[in-house]
């Protein structure tokens, strides 16, 4: 079973010169030599030894800084109202939207955007190229894409789907570097959450604000139109003028009725050419003319009181409507403001980034163990397959 050419490589290096002239049968060789000549040594033990050398002697210690935080909205706080209780019983939609926020924060943390922003604030490239970093673990390429790839190896963000708790872990070659990365990333997430929250707030308030502005403009316009109307008609209160006019005509008609009664009474006992009768007749005629004139003045022609009243009432109605619209728009703005206040998202830190004392990474024993185990199993399969193959030739 020789997969590699160790035979030729090892023969000259054999430590026992006494054996070379007459090599005894293979079985006699001491077990270390036999082990070294076996492919297992080359394919499994050698890589494992290399891994041990690397992990225990070469690899630079990596410190981990861990932070946990949640993305919350005030809407989740229990509010003693029937509507909230019902929606909570049906399955609170507020919690779901918060989970969505937490997802977007997680995705942001693993994105090139977060890398670029963090690079602007603290020099990530310098942090991962410190002198103490070993050749294999250090950052070798500074292009943004490769930096992002390396970053994704060094920074993890895990989201607990049930509680919405985000766990952020950052690794670096110095404890304070790891903490700086974690702190910066939390700050970036915080500003992202604030940005998203601000945006949602602005969106919901903008419509209400526009409504209020429209209502205000309408109120002002209706007042201005009323004033202009009053100036044009030189009349403060058209409704009052109408009442006054009605009263005048009523008075005239009362007087006319009284004079007509007096005329009839006098005609009963006076001669028709009596001058007193003539005077009364003149008064009746004068009163009738006056009533006629009053009526036509109030109801006919451009400046007639009827037209004036119609215009006045329209403007008053417009003013009332505008007032009412403004009141309702203001109320809905108030509601929207409270709603926005309630829905505001914020990032709550549960665990602040720590300053590591002991380097948790690289995981020496697990790495070496899994390399050894994986290679052994692969070797076993390979050996079985090759042995099966050999049977064909035998």
């Amino acid at each position, binding site marked *: *079973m*020789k997969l590699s050419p160790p*035979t030729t490589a090892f023969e000259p290096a054999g430590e026992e010169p006494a054996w070379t002239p007459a090599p005894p049968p*293979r079985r006699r060789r001491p077990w270390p030599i036999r082990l070294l000549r076996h492919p297992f040594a080359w394919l499994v033990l050698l890589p494992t030894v290399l891994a041990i050398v690397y992990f225990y002697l070469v690899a630079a210690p990596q410190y981990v800084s861990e932070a946990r935080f949640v993305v919350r909205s005030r809407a989740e706080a229990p509010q003693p109202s029937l509507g909230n209780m019902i929606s909570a019983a049906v399955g609170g939609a507020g919690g779901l939207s918060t989970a969505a926020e937490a997802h977007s924060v997680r995705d942001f943390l693993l994105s090139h955007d977060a890398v670029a922003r963090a690079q602007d604030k603290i020099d990530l490239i310098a942090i991962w190229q410190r002198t103490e970093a070993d050749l294999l673990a250090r950052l070798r390429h500074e292009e943004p894409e490769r930096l992002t790839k390396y970053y994704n190896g060094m920074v993890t963000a895990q989201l607990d*789907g*049930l509680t919405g708790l985000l766990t952020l872990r950052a690794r670096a070659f110095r404890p304070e570097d790891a903490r700086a990365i974690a702190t910066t990333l939390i700050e970036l997430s915080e500003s992202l959450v604030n940005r998203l929250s601000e945006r949602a707030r602005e969106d919901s308030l903008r419509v209400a604000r526009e409504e209020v502005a429209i209502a205000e403009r309408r109120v002002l316009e209706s007042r201005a139109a009323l004033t202009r109307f009053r100036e044009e008609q030189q009349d403060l209160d058209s409704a009052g003028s109408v009442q006054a006019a009605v009263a005048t005509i009523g008075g005239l008609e009362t007087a006319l009725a009284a004079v007509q009664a007096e005329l009839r009474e006098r005609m009963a006992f006076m001669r028709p050419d009596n001058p007193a009768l003539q005077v009364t007749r003149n008064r009746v005629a004068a009163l009738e003319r006056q009533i006629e004139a009053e009526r036509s003045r109030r109801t006919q022609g451009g400046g007639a009181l009827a037209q004036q009243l119609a215009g006045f009432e329209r403007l008053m109605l417009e003013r009332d409507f505008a007032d009412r619209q403004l009141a309702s728009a203001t109320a809905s703005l108030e509601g929207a403001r409270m709603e926005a206040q309630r829905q505001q998202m914020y990032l709550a830190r549960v665990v602040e980034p720590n300053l590591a004392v002991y380097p948790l990474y690289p995981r020496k024993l697990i790495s070496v163990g899994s390399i050894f185990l*994986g290679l052994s*199993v*692969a070797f*076993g*399969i390979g050996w*079985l*397959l*090759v*042995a*099966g*193959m*050999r*049977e*064909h*030739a*035998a």
Partner: protein
Amino acid sequence: MSGAVTRTGLVDAARMQLRVIGALVIREMHTRFGRQRLGYLWLFAEPLLLGGVIALLHGASGGEGIRSSFEFFSIGFMLFQLLRGIVSRAPNTINANQTLLYHRQVTLPDLFFARHAIELAASAGVMALFVVAGIAMGGAAPDQPVKMILALVLMLLLAQGIAFMVGSITSEFEAAGYFVQIATFGIMPICGLMFMVEWLPPDWQEVALWMPTVHLFELMRDGQFGEQFRTFYDLSYIGWWIIGPHLLGLAGLRIARARVGLE
């Protein structure tokens, strides 16, 4: 391990093994389909009918969006068919071909390799047919076909490891074969064919991801639908599931070979 066999000897042996497997494939095809009228076409007709019926049933039963789509079940079923075909035929592989073992060149793994090659050809061929049919019916073309092919290959390896183990166990305890038949159907609802991990509640997602086949279905759907869905898979986890059963199965077959030869 005499050491006399050199590198060229190994290459010769490998070539010989390939020839043996090729001959076994032809023999297997002949014993399975040779007498039927359609001949070798049955190899494709059987999974085609099964997959088509299942996809149409699910399509007719309604459901939202992708859950009822033809591609989801027809192509997914082919991946399952590969696993089912290989594992459910594993118990009688040794029995059916016992006479062949009198030839020195035929080894137990060869019998399995030949059957697996046939199953892979059937599943991959029908899957390609379904992909074309899906596109013809107005569906989108696969996003990354490489991932679908990778899923097929990994499923082949996973099933192969399990088949080795099943074969070596059933050569000793024949009754175990019945459990395998039941298990290959019982696994259907939980193997990942019917669901995507994204649809499950979070705590069930973790449970589902213990199942190695779920990772493979996720991998294939990642290649099939691309970014439309979130997929969860871990290739190293599948890797352990492949090499573990391979080691145990191949070792088991070596033991079985010695016992089978005695009969």
